[in-house]
Structures are given as C-alpha cells and as structure tokens.
C-alpha cells in the first residue's frame, strides 16, 4: 500500500481537485483506492456526494474507538472508497496532541488497511500543524500543488528542508504546477524553466480552467466527466509521474 498526500500550506491551490482526480485515475487503472478527506470543509466528500460525517467524529478515529474501516464509504466509482470529512476534524490537532507519538498516529491508523487498498490518498487541510506533520510522516509521496510564482517555489524549498529533517522515514516530494495561466508571462517562464532545474517538479501542469470548477457542479472528478479536456490530460500525466515516483507495482487487474 502506497500513501500519497496532497499537501500545501496555502489553501485554494488545487489540493482537493488533485486528490479527487488522482484517486479516480488510480482506481480506473485497477488499484484499490481509499481517499481520506482530512479537510473539515469536506470538499472531497461533497464532490463524491457523501455526507461529511463520521460517527464519533475525528476523536473516535484518532483514539481508535472506531476503526477507519467502519467509517469508509464507497463512492460511485469502482474500487474508489472515501473516508469522509467531519467538521470535528478542525480539532484534530488537539486530539493528536493527546495521543502517543502524534506525528506517527496517522500511519499507525492506516496500517491495518494495507491488505484492502493499494493506494491511499490523503487530502490535507491547508496548514502547518500536528495533523500535517502526521500526514508528512505517513506519506510515501507528497503531491505539492504550486501556483507558478517565486513565493511558491520558496515554500517548496521550506517544505523540502522540513521533511529532510525527519528521522527515519522521509516522504518523497513531487511538486506540480496548478492553476496555470499561460497568458501570464511569469507563469509561462517558471513552468518552462523549473522542471528542467529541479527533479522534484513534475512536467505535468494543471491549467486554470473552468472545467475544473465544474467539478463542484457535476460532483465528479473532471477526469471522469470530461476525460478529453486539457485539464484531464494533465491530471493523467501527473498520475503517471506520481505512479512512477511512488514505484507502484502494476495494478492487480
């Protein structure tokens, strides 16, 4: 089981859209996928028409009073399941703080699912917190959406440095450009130059297109309802790069 996490300290950069599309593409390829919507806003749960509610809230899950297995819901897509968001997730930091080894708590909660799923995708809320630290410790690969600006690149450096300081397991990082507007000169330049300079930046770049915003209307991944669009093509390319980077074995079809 490989754990992928979409992560960025900033909000509104395309984490959820990426998590949803990567989860869908992985399932379409034959992998058994679990997407955990860790964001109390519950956008991923909404996109899959699943109520953002977990019996007992985040506390019951983190403390192990309720197994993850119990809370999982099937989406409308084969092999793709979702662990819904819950508004109580806003307090997960407090719950984690009270737990033993909080930074490793998520990894230990997910461990029993390794026979059931090939891929877990964690959709993280935007923050630097105990929860995000626990996500960074659990993940094999971080998918980091970047708006093509100089500041974003600086944030990526900070993240790389932070993760590099972990003892033992360190997640691999695959950054990619998101909300790309090629009409903007700065966007075009950064997208052209950075992947050549840095191996941790994917060649896939997700454009800022209204079809991605349509996801909240269609309540489905863009790769499912508009698979021939440029946005879907770029998500597929990103999934291909992520799969290679995470060294996922062939899907057990």
């Amino acid at each position: 089981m490989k754990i992928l996490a979409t992560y960025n300290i900033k909000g509104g950069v395309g984490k959820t859209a990426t998590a949803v599309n990567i989860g869908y593409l992985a399932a379409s390829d034959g992998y058994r996928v679990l997407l955990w919507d860790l964001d109390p806003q519950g956008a991923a749960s909404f996109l899959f028409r699943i109520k953002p509610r977990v019996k007992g809230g985040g506390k019951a899950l983190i403390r192990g009073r309720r197994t993850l297995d119990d809370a999982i819901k099937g989406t409308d897509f084969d092999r793709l399941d979702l662990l819904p968001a819950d508004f109580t997730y806003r307090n997960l930091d407090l719950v984690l703080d009270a737990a033993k080894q909080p930074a490793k708590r998520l990894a230990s909660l997910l461990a029993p699912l390794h026979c059931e799923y090939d891929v877990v995708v964690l959709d993280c809320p935007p923050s630097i917190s105990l929860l995000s630290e626990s996500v960074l410790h659990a993940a094999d690969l971080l998918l980091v959406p970047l708006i093509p600006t100089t500041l974003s690149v600086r944030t990526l450096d900070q993240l790389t440095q932070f993760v590099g300081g972990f003892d033992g397991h360190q997640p691999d990082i695959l950054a990619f450009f998101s909300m790309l507007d090629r009409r903007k000169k700065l966007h075009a330049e950064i997208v052209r130059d950075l992947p050549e300079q840095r191996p941790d930046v994917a060649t896939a770049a997700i454009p800022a297109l209204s079809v991605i915003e349509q996801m909240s209307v269609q309540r489905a991944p863009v790769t499912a309802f508009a698979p021939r669009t440029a946005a879907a093509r770029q998500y597929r390319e990103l999934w291909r790069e992520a799969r290679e980077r995470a060294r996922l074995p062939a899907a057990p079809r």
Partner: protein
Amino acid sequence: MASDQREFVLTDAAGAGSDVLQTLTAAGPEALSWANGGAVRSWRRIWLDTFDWRLYRAGLTLEQVRSGSSQAELVLTGRDGAIVATERLPAASKPEWPRLAAELPAGPLQAALEPVSGLRALAPVARAVSKLAQFQALNDDAKTIARLAVDRVSVTYPARAVLPARLTLVPVRGYQAQAARVGRAIGSLPGVRAGRDSVLEAVLAAAGGQPGEVAGKPSGLQLTPGMPAGRALSQILSGLLDAMEANVPGTLKDIDTEFLHDLRVAVRWTRSALKLCGDALPRGLAREYAPEFRWLGDLTTPTRDFDVFLLGYPAMAASLVGADADELIPFRDHLARSRAAAYRRMVAGLRSARFARLRTNWRAALADVRGTRRPTVAQLADAKIAAAHRRALLGGGKITAASPPESLHDLRKRCKELRYLVEMFGSLHDPAQRWQAVRELKALQDCLGEFQDTEVQRMEIRGYAAQMMAERAAPAETLLAMGEIAARLAVAQATARAQFDGRFADFAGPASRRRMAALARTAAA
C-alpha cells in the same frame, strides 16, 4: 461484498420482460430513485468443471466470461459468491476446452484450481448468454447506495432454455442499511422470490440436470440385506456397465487419463464380481461373459500402463541424481509415441462391433436376471467376504523369505478381490465398521502394490531400452538415465519387500481378523 448482496428471481408478473426500472421505482422507498447504469451488455458464459464435479463438490464455481470481442476471462468463485481468483486468457488464442488446470497460465487461478481438479480436465458443463442491465439506486443526494444487476440468461448447453430474470442487489460500502431497505422493498414485490440457487444450479436445472451428478458411479448403489442375491448382483453389474459407458466418450476423446482409469476400474470390478459371485447369477452367464471382459481389460491395459509412466515422468526426471533430467527426454518421447500407438489400437477396440455387442447383450442379459429368494445379498456378501478373507490369509501365510515374487503377486490379487467385495457390498455395512475392517488390508495392499508395480515398471524399462536401441532412438546418456530410474525402482521394490512381513503380520493379527470376521457376519445379521 458477496455476503451483503441479495439475489432475487423475477417472474413475468413483476415486469421481468418489460420495464424493470419502472417496477422497482414504484416499489422502492420514497427518497429513492433509480438510474440506468448504461447499455445492456451481452456476455457469453461457459461454466467449467471436471467430469466428476470436483470444483462443485469443493464449493467452487469456475466460469469463463466474454463480452463481444473482448478477452475471455476466467472467474473462480467460492460458496458465498466471493471471487477467489481471476485470469485473463491470452487475447490471440481462442480458449479451448477441455484442458487441465496445469495447462492454464501460471498464477493465483491455476494455484487455486490445480489441487482441486488434479488429473481431471476442466470441460464445459453449461453454456449460456447473459444480457446484463445495470441500475443504480440513488439516495436523495443522488449518491449511489446500491447497484442492481438484472440478468436475463439464455441457456444454450446442455439444453436450450430461458431462465427467469435474476436480480442481484449489491450495496455500496457504508450504505448497507439503506440498501437493505431497498432489498426488502424488492423482495416484497408480487412475483419476486429470493434466489436461493446459484446461476449454475439454475442453468442446469432449466436444462434438466443438476450439478454433482456423475453417471454410473460404481460404489453409489444402495442395497438392502433381504434382496435376492441374483437381483442385487444384477443391479451392481448394471451400475458398473453404466460406469463403463459413461467413461467411454471421454476415453475416446482422450480428455484426461481418468476416464480410462475409471473405465478400467468398472471392468475390474465386473470381472471380480463374475469370478467371485458368478454362482449367484443364472447358470452359464458368468462363464459366457468373463472372457469378454477379460478382452476389454487387456485392450485397455497398454494405454493405461503408458499413462502411469507419463504421469510419473516429472517426478521420475526430478529424482535423477547421476543423470540430467534433459537426458531422459528421448525416453519420454518414446513413451509418448508408444502411448499414441497403444491408444489407436484401444480406440479401434472400443469402436468395434465386438464391444458394441458386449454392451448391448450384457445389458439385456442383466435385465433378464430373476433372482430367487435365497440366498439374500447379505448372505452372499457374508459368505464371499469370509471366503476371500480366508484365501488371503492362507496365501500370505505361505510366503517366506525364499518365496518367488509371483507368490506376492498372487496375494495381491487375493487382497484386491477381498477389497472389491467389501466395497461392492459396502452399502450393507456401517461405514465406520467397514473403514476399521479394511485398515490393515489397505496397508498390506499398498505394500504389495509397490512391490509389484516397481517390478513391472523395471521390467518395462528394460523392454523400452531394448526397443529404443533397436530403433536407434536411445543415446547412451538416455540409457544411463533409464538405468538410474530402474535402479531406483529396484531399491523401492526391496524396501516394499522388507516391509511385507510386518504388514502381513498386522493383517493376519487377531485384532484385524476379528474386525474382518465381524464385517463378514453383520450383513445378514
């Protein structure tokens, strides 16, 4: 997933032939709607099992499914419908049946099948075309909570038939409670009943059969102790003739080695029954037919001998120490060529007028047997088992260290006769008592079998070596490898000979005698 799913059978009254969706919408909870899950798909389905239903008896169902020009896929499911393993068959080749599990692509499916099907080939037991429509049950948020498959199955083999539409409701994970409500609503529709049988069972039932039925199983006959012996014997022999006839087509098509094996078992039992109990049949009948069944046995022996060699070949090649396994290949090729020639001769015999006449006349003769009231089959069984037991004890008691191999071969025949009698009249005895009685006999038979088979095989290897040299088909290294095999057989034979005294002592010991003697008293008691 499989444990949560519910199966239903729709009759026409419930709209099976028209608009299933409309019927369901009317019946479901108010907050529920249905969505059409896409175009109706057509599937060609073939269910596969061995001739003796080994998969079915092990709770497994093997199905080959194919849609349009897509690759065929084999799907193995367990008793609860859960998938055990799947295998996509190579796109280029058209899947051909029958074939052995060992011939399937290596993988989880083959690994699950091979221990169950063993030497028996997998062959189609039913064929059908499924027209599958998919629907989704949606809650008030338009979220799918269950999937419903409506399957209309047209059977094309073993007979043409159309099944009532079958519904399978599968809850989406996390929505079991809502899906259960949908299931209850469907179940309460007029003309809908719960589907209790599997699709395969329904298919075979519609075609007039049922899984697990094996034609002419020789040990399946139920005898009652008071039956006139002649009539009982006639029934036993008719059952054995059924078994022979059931195995002839598979033998002629060379589907797997076990058809011939089972055919020969039925012939052997018949010959023993004629020899040991022929006096209970009308005068002259046994004497008239015994030579014919001897002919049939002899006709099939060479092919079976080659089968035994070829089945044991991989182990034989793997056991070589001084020689390389590849050096034995010319020997295997010689066996295969010789087997092909023997098989052609056997087929000619099985297709001959003589064999056809034997079957027809024998069946007619058995139908004419009118048993007198005495002896009863129980009296016959007791007397014959006791006599066969005495003969085995007597024959074995005379064997010393200086006795020639033939004396052990003779004892093996006596033991076989005793065993056949015990099995043939098996339904007259308590199974546990029978098992106890034959425990030591089985151990002795294994030892005698090993002693004789190794000797026969050793002699045959000598003969093959001479033939191969004459045909210039035997390189020196092959002859050396064959020599190593022959030496191994000689060692195995010596080991069996060394074990004989102990095994016979157990068989002839007071406890074993008591158990066998008790068995020979109970049928008529």
